[in-house]
């Protein structure tokens, strides 16, 4: 019978673990401590009842949501912006060695936080898989989705999502080993092509190569982590992906590779918000576009303060500075977006203009501006006037 006390001890210990486990779900939510009443003390399961109370409180916010200005009000009340992002996409969204998110998409989350809250660090990233992004956006768990998401008609139409001004124009490309003798897509007859499964990349390739009468064998992978060694080990001759990703790998692979000139699809990537809150959509849209407008004006994080005294009324209006009208009255123009007048100033001084964001994240990967150059410089980055 000496085993019984031992066993009871083990059970007691497991019980202790169980209690600790249930404790943590609220560890992140310190406000709950003050909300909860004495009744919840008796059993561990009452923690859920506690959650119920919190949910009721939030239920009132839901009504506001329906009324139209929900997300902005919710973000302001919360004090942080919740972005859906990527944590494994080179250049766009990664976690660096310090455990911090960084990348092109992450910087646009920063832009939005600076515009709405005046603090470019007041944001949280929720890393999402490709399959999770739209359900998560619909559930309201994130305020905005900035995760290399291609704008397509079917997504706009059936995912209850509103796509906003693209931050990056990508396209599907092909990469081969330099010694393969393949110079264009037409040489890729009867090859094996490495591709990620479950992406539009595979569908595009089937359609376009099928139309062109190029026969090939697709070799599918679930992540670049497994695809890359296969390509290096010559399990496939061609690697297809978004051109930006191919450029990133081309710059870092130990073998000599060539990105083919053929681009077979349009992949405009940009921020996405849930349907049903047009004010919030406009805010995200104009915050994004402000970075491009700033580049057009030649304003960057280094020189933005010198523009505060600019002679150009367009720039003054853009930066939220008082502008004299015809009668000599000076006033700060409110464009009526629900944003602070100086939102563009906050964006540029805290994060930077489009060129700065691009150069910080994508130039190191070996990416050219290409179509993402300003319209004045041969690209297609063109935004409506800030008037």
């Amino acid at each position: 019978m000496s085993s019984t006390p031992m066993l009871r001890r083990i059970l007691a210990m497991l019980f202790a673990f169980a209690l600790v486990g249930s404790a943590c779900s609220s560890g992140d939510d310190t406000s709950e401590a003050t909300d909860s009443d004495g009744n919840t003390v008796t059993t561990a399961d009452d923690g859920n009842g506690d959650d119920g109370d919190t949910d009721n409180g939030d239920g009132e916010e839901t009504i506001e949501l329906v009324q139209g200005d929900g997300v902005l009000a919710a973000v302001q009340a919360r004090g942080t912006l919740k972005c859906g992002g990527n944590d494994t996409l080179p250049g766009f969204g990664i976690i660096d060695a310090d455990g911090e998110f960084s990348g092109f998409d992450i910087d646009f989350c920063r832009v939005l936080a600076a515009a709405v809250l005046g603090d470019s660090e007041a944001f949280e990233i929720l890393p999402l898989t490709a399959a999770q992004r739209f359900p998560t956006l619909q559930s309201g768990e994130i305020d905005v989705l900035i995760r290399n998401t291609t704008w397509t008609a079917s997504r706009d139409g059936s995912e209850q999502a509103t796509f906003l001004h693209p931050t990056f124009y990508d396209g599907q490309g092909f990469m081969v080993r330099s010694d393969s003798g393949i110079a264009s897509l037409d040489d890729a007859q009867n090859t094996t092509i490495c591709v990620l499964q479950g992406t539009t990349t595979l569908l595009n390739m089937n359609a376009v190569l099928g139309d062109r009468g190029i026969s090939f064998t697709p070799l599918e992978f679930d992540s670049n982590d497994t695809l890359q060694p296969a390509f290096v080990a010559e399990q496939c001759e061609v690697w297809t992906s978004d051109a930006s990703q191919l450029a990133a790998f081309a710059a870092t692979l130990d073998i000599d590779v060539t990105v083919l000139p053929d681009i077979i699809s349009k992949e405009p990537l940009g921020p996405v918000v849930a349907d049903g809150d047009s004010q919030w959509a406009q805010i995200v849209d104009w915050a994004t576009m402000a970075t491009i407008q700033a580049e057009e004006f030649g304003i960057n994080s280094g020189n933005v303060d010198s523009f505060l005294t600019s002679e150009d009324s367009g720039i003054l209006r853009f930066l939220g500075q008082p502008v004299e009208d015809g009668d000599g009255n000076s006033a700060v123009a409110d464009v009526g977006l629900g944003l602070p007048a100086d939102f563009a100033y906050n964006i540029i001084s805290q994060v930077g203009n489009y060129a700065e964001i691009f150069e910080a994240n994508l130039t190191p990967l070996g990416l050219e501006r290409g179509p993402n150059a300003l319209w004045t410089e041969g690209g297609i980055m063109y935004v409506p006037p800030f008037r």
Partner: protein
Amino acid sequence: MTDPLITATGDGVPLVVEPNTPPSKKLPPGEWVKANLFSNWYNSLVTLVMAVILIYLARFLIGWAIGVEWQITRTNLRNFMVGGFPADELWRPWAASLLIIAGASLGFGAMSRAEHETDVRNGIPSTKPTQLDLFRRFWPIVLLSIFFVSFARTTPPFIGVAVGIVGLFALREVGWRLPAVIRDRGVFVFAAFLLAGFGCLAGTGGLLAIVAGIIVAVLVSTELGRAGITTRAVVIAGPIAAGLVTYFVLSAIGLEGFGWDDWGGFHITIFATAVGIATGLPFGILLAIGRRSNLPVIKTACVIFIEFVRGVPLITLLLFSSFMLPLFFPAGSDTRSGLTRAMILITAFSAAYFAEIVRGGLQSVPKGQTEAAQASGMSPGAIQRLIVMPQALRNVIPAMVGQAIALFKDTSLLAIIGIADFFQYGEISNTQQDFLGKGLQPVTYTFIALGYWAVAYWMSRESRRLEMKLRVGVR
């Protein structure tokens, strides 16, 4: 002092039963090699061929491990350990780990002393476990800590690990020497340290205060039992009052911390396993009892739950937590983090598996046990608690630890739903600019595999030790 049980023959000569142990088969090394490796010509040949293969493999692996660039694990060590935990708050996970080690060490010291004393009182031969015994129990974990810390680039982690290892061995001695009053409450000592460690991480507010309140209530209730107080009002009101006081005091302190949504890496992996076991086991026991119930509704509900959860792969449940669970929350409300939702489903998953294991244990207890208990007038609750459950659980400990190990490894599926656990940092670190396209996956996944292996191996060794301790298989 002579134990009366042993001197039971009446003529003053102690009756000592010497068990007949089989003759030792230990051979001197030379003879062992001859008997086992070179007993005849074809065995010798097989030995030589295998030796060549093993030497080749070992050379290859060692050469690879030395030649390969481990910079990626060095740079990302913190990611692998705690993920994106705020850098200037790293004292929290350190303090938590050290407090939990201290608690475990003190608790185990105290508990093994208490067992020792019980054994001595019952005349069972028992010696104090040596430090070497302790090392034999924990060497995989000790080795893993040293392996992990060998990638550190600054001094504090080395100090932390050294303190942890020294503490593990030193505090056990302290635990062994604790006065009997504290020693007999080793579980509560452990629980107190566990809670303190958790408080360092997640703060004192919220449910932590509730849990502490419950533990204090349980402590007070046990103490009242020990003191022999049976007055109804005191037995009920005392623990509740003590629990409430603890809750309000801790809430009032209001120390802030970081909940699990800010954690990552190995922390998440360990934590998800601990929660899966600690919440899954109690639920599993309830489900197992429910499944054997005579009440049709309860029985059917338990059967449906168990069979449904066991009938779908864990990854399906995790995807369910990611995609469908938010729909169960009222629109626009806080749907809780992805990890919290995943933990709900992991709990359900492990509960269903534990339930079936426990049911197997319950069925192994002869019906006569229950009937004898009924005949002696015990209440149904007491029969379960004191007669059936202890025997049932004792019989299925190996199966339960097997399930725990499986769960530990299964938590790597969290990566599929985008949770940055230990496994996911393999992919994350390979997408960083410095390491992109360098083909370092073999390095990171070797690192990860060693992490999983050490803990899983330690758990399986602990299970074997428990088996021997509880004398499972000896009836």
